[in-house]
């Protein structure tokens, strides 16, 4: 593969903390220096400063749609409430 191929890595995990993502970028670096990363962040995830050894373009995409965030919050609340309902879980033990 020629050295100048452009590679875009898309990950739904924060790449700073995921070793499989970091390792794949390191391996890809053997073949191309033109690598960019697009990371799909969760609505409550904070955009971190790049403290990795990789000097690359990073795009951090947060969910922008307000309606979607509200629906997400709604589900998160429901899930939390459901998880805390110990009486319900006792029935199925």
């Amino acid at each position, binding site marked *: 593969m020629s050295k100048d191929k452009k590679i*875009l890595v898309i990950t*739904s995990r924060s790449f700073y903390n995921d070793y499989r*993502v970091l390792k794949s970028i390191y391996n890809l670096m053997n073949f191309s220096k033109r690598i*960019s990363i697009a990371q*799909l962040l969760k609505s409550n995830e904070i955009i971190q400063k790049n403290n990795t050894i990789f000097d690359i373009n990073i795009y951090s*995409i947060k969910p922008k749609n307000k309606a979607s965030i509200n629906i997400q919050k709604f589900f998160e609340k429901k899930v939390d409430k459901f*998880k805390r309902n110990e009486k319900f879980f006792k029935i199925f033990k």
Partner: protein
Amino acid sequence: MPSFYTFKFFNLGYLKFINDYINIKSYEKELENIITKNIPDIIYIHEFKALLVLSSIYKKNKILFKNIKFIYDAHEIECFRNPPKVFIIKLFIEFIEIKFLKQVKAKVISVSHGICNYYSNKLKNNKNIFLIKNLPSKIRFYKDNYDITTEKNVKEVFFQDTPRDPPNSKLGIYSGILTLNRGIEEAIQLINNFPNIYLALVGSFNSKKFEARFDKLNYDRSRIKIIEHVENDLLINFIKTADFSIVPTLPITLSYYHSSPNKLHESKAANLPIFAQILPEHLIELKVNSSHPIGAVSDFFNHINLKNDFEIFLNHLNEYKHNYKFEKISYFNSPDQVKIYQKILR
């Protein structure tokens, strides 16, 4: 599918999925702009959520992807991830994933032979499936500097407050995230039966819920201790001084059944005898059926046999350690892995 594969109807998998699916729409536009701006030659996709966003963009704007090659890194079998999902959602995930991979003729990378077989069966094409194991790293991925000479090992850290009694007792390690369904509770229950065995759990909790549940467990705090997460590049040297490693991953989903976890490869790199759950990938990695096994397997669900198997394992630790002479240990950027990447990017 394993006979002990369990299916729970009352789970939260579907709620999480609906939540994720609603979220997809809000990533689409920005990701489309990034692709239009960059015009990449290759798109490397990590996991299903990223694939789902891409497939949605692909549906609307196929021309954008005309000259782009795709590589999909499936960390697990998405529809059989933990927590188990309801039937309809499994079908939906499988449909979207396989359809997109076929449409774009993507190359698929996965972590174990079992997962590779799953994708080659689904895609009816095994030329585009590649195995990249979760091998350990010797490379520091972060810029912060630290003095490596001050680093301790697991033995020093574990016995700094507790004297080792008796002196010939053995120290085992479990490394990785401390969470539900990884067999940690079963491992603790097992170690409770052996007063001469110590266990270090090297890792951090991934949820407060499990931390609270863990606190309530009945175990000897001087024999079983939690040691904070150690950086990936230091881990091998840190665990090297232990006497054995325990890999109890429970096969509660198909994805876990075919898993080839980091901790297994890290323990191998540290030359530790390994006691693992009986799973296809563990049998291969530990060479259980060969003349030079480096560990033993047992069923962590079967508590009576487990105790006997562990006792036999402890009696053969020296033999397993000796058998590492026949092992070739490789790290993630070893020449053979680079060769696989060369093939993938061709």
